[in-house]
């Protein structure tokens, strides 16, 4: 059997003097739908950037597919949280999705082939926006934008999909559809997602961790009160109430 898809061993990360990640251990195995939850500023995006090789770890080792993250990137699809780009960029939906394959296109000129276009159509189909492929991206609604970003991550047919707060920009019905989509994708690739919204964790996740600088996990899909209290430093019921998918076992009021 293969080794873990992602393996972090006591990884620390300092950003402008502040310890954002503190001796984080993480093991994501093949076929996982792994969710990392934690408060804003808890280091979730930093964790993903370290896994993607966009930020160097200050100490510890990071291995993705058993190798350096930079070498593993061609097998990763990434759905960023922060819009590092402008949806007013003159680009059609198909062109945007196709651009996600550019790293796989060989040669100096990197022309797209029929195979690339086919992959783009497939990714658009999976995210249910094939009918929008000729539209300029500036005409998309928030939910459609999110689908386009996911399609761009899928177009390279990755073995690992990394999503940063994928539900932030979408409404409730879209959120449920996106979860169905992730569930379907889980059979083909390993999925790692981070979110600050515990309500976004469906019962389909295989493993959960809480991150607030340090990481807390039982290596199962269960979120325990102690994990949450440790990560959030606040009574659990404040965050646990009113969530659509209850992942907690019944618990009494804390505090």
């Amino acid at each position, binding site marked *: 059997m293969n080794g873990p898809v992602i393996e972090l061993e006591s990884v620390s990360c300092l950003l402008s003097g502040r310890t954002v990640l503190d001796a984080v251990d993480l093991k994501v195995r093949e076929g996982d739908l792994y969710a990392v939850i934690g408060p804003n500023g808890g280091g979730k995006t930093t964790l993903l950037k370290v896994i993607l090789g*966009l930020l160097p770890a200050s100490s510890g080792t990071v291995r993705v597919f058993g190798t350096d993250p930079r070498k593993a990137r061609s097998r990763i699809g990434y759905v960023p949280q922060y819009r590092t780009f402008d949806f007013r960029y003159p680009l059609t939906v198909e*062109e945007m999705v196709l651009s996600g394959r550019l790293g796989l296109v060989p040669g100096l000129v990197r022309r797209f082939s029929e195979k690339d276009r086919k992959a783009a159509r497939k990714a658009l189909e999976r995210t249910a926006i094939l009918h929008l492929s000729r539209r300029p991206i500036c005409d998309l609604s928030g939910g459609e934008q999110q689908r386009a970003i996911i399609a761009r991550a899928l177009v390279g047919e990755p073995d690992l999909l990394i999503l940063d707060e994928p539900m932030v920009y979408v409404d409730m019905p879209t959120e449920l559809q996106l979860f169905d989509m992730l569930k379907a994708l889980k059979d083909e690739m390993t999925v790692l997602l981070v979110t600050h919204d515990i309500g976004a964790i469906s019962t389909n996740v295989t493993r959960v961790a809480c991150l607030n600088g340090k990481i807390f996990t039982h290596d199962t899909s269960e979120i325990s009160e102690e994990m949450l209290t440790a990560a959030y430093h606040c009574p659990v019921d404040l965050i646990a109430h009113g969530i659509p998918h209850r992942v907690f076992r019944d618990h009494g009021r804390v505090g």
Partner: protein
Amino acid sequence: MMLSILGFEFFRNAVAAGLMASIVCGIIGSFVIVKRLVSLSGGLAHAAFGGVGLGYFLGVDPFLGAAGFTLAIALLIGTIREKFGQYMETLTGVVWAAGMATGILFIALTPGYAPELFGFLFGNILLIPSEDLIIMGILALGILLIVTAGFNQLVAVTFDEEYARVMNLPVTALLLLLLMLIAFSVIVLLRVVGIILVIALLTIPPAIAREYSGSMRSMMCLSVLAAAGCTIGGLFLSYVMNVPSGATIILLATLGYGLMLFERWMAGRRTQGAAG
């Protein structure tokens, strides 16, 4: 009868220069607008003045001096941004003024006076020497070839730099290439509208085109058309009215920009009316 002026070589040169400038500002200007490098482009254009001064001082063709100097400054900016993490905006401010200062200093140090100074500052499309036209042509062709070959990668890196990095594209090299292309464009436009007005030609036609484009290709094509309308139209107008050509071209472009805003405002009212 107005077309009879096309019989003059200087006028045919001017039309050729105007068309080359249009192609360049349509293509590179589109990247400048979407990547928000407008002020950087203004900075590079003014830095070119340092090259003009250096050219006079060293006894080299000042146009060639400007070309070399601007290219060097573009590469320097890109490297400093990468190595020292400085804001592009800060570097723009520095090279903008430092370039002008270099030019002033070297011109003062050069004995005699610099005859074409006014032409470099404000441009004169009617007085472009044939040698400079050849340099412009080579640069324009180079820009066209490089953008055609690197189109997909330049779009990817100007659209989403971080994702381009995740895809292992040579992001640093591509951004340096883009700065070089802007430097080349500045040089091509220099003779047409002058150092002070280059920024307008790199900005206004693509800004108009953007409003009517759903893809980068269409934005570039529309920008070239809009720029050609401004340069050729401005050229004829300035000739007929006997006023400076660079200023006429820019004011015509500004008028076009105003018309675009008005059209957008009207379109907005129409859709509101239809919805209400």
